[in-house]
């Protein structure tokens, strides 16, 4: 499923990375705990769902080689976060939906969990 399709499914908005909306996502991990995210081994074409919107969520993606981030519950994304994400060629989508609702929509649409 492409990022564009995911964005539409969750009625999201693109914060950065508009050039990569045609990229394909194969699995999803959802967590607010960055140490959990850092334990993931295979993150190819993985989308991270999180309600944690701060510099550390972007840094965690940077260290883990995660390029696609979906921020739930409509949390603010600061300019600093956006800049850091752009430096790392990341896509950030934001939705007003909750974590559970977002997960349910994406799972239902056929996107599996990473494990």
């Amino acid at each position, binding site marked *: 499923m492409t990022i564009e399709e995911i964005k539409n499914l969750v009625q999201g908005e693109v914060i950065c990375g508009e050039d990569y909306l045609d990229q394909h996502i194969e699995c999803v991990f959802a967590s607010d705990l*960055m140490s959990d995210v*850092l334990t993931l081994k295979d993150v190819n074409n993985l989308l991270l769902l999180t309600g944690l919107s*701060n510099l*550390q969520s972007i*840094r965690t993606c940077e260290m883990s080689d995660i390029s696609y981030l979906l921020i739930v519950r409509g949390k603010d994304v600061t300019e600093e976060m956006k800049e850091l994400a752009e430096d790392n060629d990341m896509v950030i989508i934001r939705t007003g939906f909750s974590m559970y609702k977002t997960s349910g929509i994406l799972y239902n649409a056929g996107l599996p969990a990473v494990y």
Partner: protein
Amino acid sequence: MNFTYHVEGGDFTNAGSTSSQVKRMLKKIGVSPEIVKKTVVALYEAEVNIVAHAYRGDITVDLEEDHVKIVLADEGPGIPDIERAMQKGYSTASQKVREMGFGAGMGLPNIKNNSDSLNITSEVGKGTTIEFVNYFFGH
């Protein structure tokens, strides 16, 4: 080659900036993506630990032909019981640290899982030193 970086305790804005620089450096010299990831995940957890628990610290990166050795030496409260701190789920982190997405007692176990060798020494009231080595081509 030796590089040293300074980290301030409590500076959550810059937490991870050293890890970011080291990541770029390792990628640039052609270290494989898996080894880069494992090294920077361990380094990032350890860097966040300094920011979260210590007053200040220095990170020294010793880059050799077939391995990288990273030493994080901090001035801080130290760890009274290292064995306990190594247990998954044990944490003394503040609410602030938890709000940053850490402090669930996974930092040290994550560092262990992402390093080929790890040595932790600590003196209560003085500080903690974490030293880990990752090999580029297995060992």
